[in-house]
């Protein structure tokens, strides 16, 4: 239960931050929510935890009161990225990075052949590595604390 609450808090905060003007790096916004959800998918294997986390993020990121095509595409991308973390055959970190890269390509399908897209891919890659280290260590400590308690 505590792990879900912490994950939901991380996802909510990340999603709200992604809608602000604070995360512009060289005129680009990194796909923080996609990165966080892919990493949390590696930690939470059950879809009954992954699904609410994804839905919370999609609700916060929705940029109009109605659902439009971009919301559907983003939702599909997020669920696909979380699935790929399970199905790709490599190590956990590599699976996460590859699923984030594929997610980034799908979201930006209309502008793949551009310098901006390459910059965004690189930005997402660097932030994935940083977030993976932080979130993985955080959950390792939480699990260790819970084990020591019992």
């Amino acid at each position, binding site marked *: 239960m505590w792990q879900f609450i912490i994950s939901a808090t991380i996802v909510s905060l990340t999603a709200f931050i992604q809608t*602000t003007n604070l995360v512009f790096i060289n005129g680009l916004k990194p796909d923080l929510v996609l990165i966080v959800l892919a990493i949390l998918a590696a930690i939470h294997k059950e879809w009954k935890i992954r699904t609410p986390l994804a839905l919370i993020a999609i609700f916060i990121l929705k*940029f109009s009161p109605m659902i439009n095509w971009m919301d559907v595409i983003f939702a599909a991308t997020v669920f696909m990225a979380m699935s790929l973390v399970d199905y790709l055959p490599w190590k956990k970190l590599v699976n996460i990075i590859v699923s984030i890269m594929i997610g980034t390509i799908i979201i930006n399908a209309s502008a793949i052949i551009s310098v901006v897209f390459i910059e965004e891919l690189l930005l997402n890659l660097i932030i994935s590595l940083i977030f993976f280290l932080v979130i993985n260590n955080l959950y390792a400590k939480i699990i260790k604390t819970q084990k020591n308690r019992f």
Partner: protein
Amino acid sequence: MRKISTLSAIIVLLLLLIFGGPLFDKKLSISQSINNLLSIPSSRQEFEDKIASLEAENLKLRKQILSKDGIDSVSAKVYSSYPLNNRSEIAISAGKKNGIEVGDTVVYGDNVLVGKITNVFKSSSIVTTIFDPSWEISVRIGDNEVDALLSGGNELTLTLIPKEIEIKPGEKVVSAGSNIPYGLKIGIVRSVSDIPGGVFKKAIVEPDFQIRQLRDVAIYH
């Protein structure tokens, strides 16, 4: 029991996603609160930028007060910006109840063009900015008022500039499109290049503002 509560939570979230439209304004104001909480200027340059934009806005407001032909405008706060990079939109705190309509022009500071209203709700609106990949308007360059077409995106590009006409870096670019007030500032020419084998040349524009600077905007009817 756990399965039922998990399923219920998922159903509630799905319903929120589909029918949570009325919560949109509340969500935007939470975004704005987080933005205000976390955006502490961390460098002298940011303070100086802020002072410059406030002075420009003060000057504009003084001109309006003294001018006999007042401009019909509404001011609004910027709530948030579109979360992904394939579009450039901002949400502002003025909507139908403030008289905002689709197509209204949005400016920043001293008449710097930000974009146009593309969606209006009860107390908020969505603005498509000049950085959106779909943005295109006619513009004029420099004192000679050379016609060109401005295309949006992460890099603002001027096209359809006749090859024989000389354009220099540093020349001002202003709006000249239909449905937008004439002469709104867009930026300055940063570089000019020839298109091989073409009859036109192109230029890159250095915009007069960045999305992350936006806190307050004015909407012209």
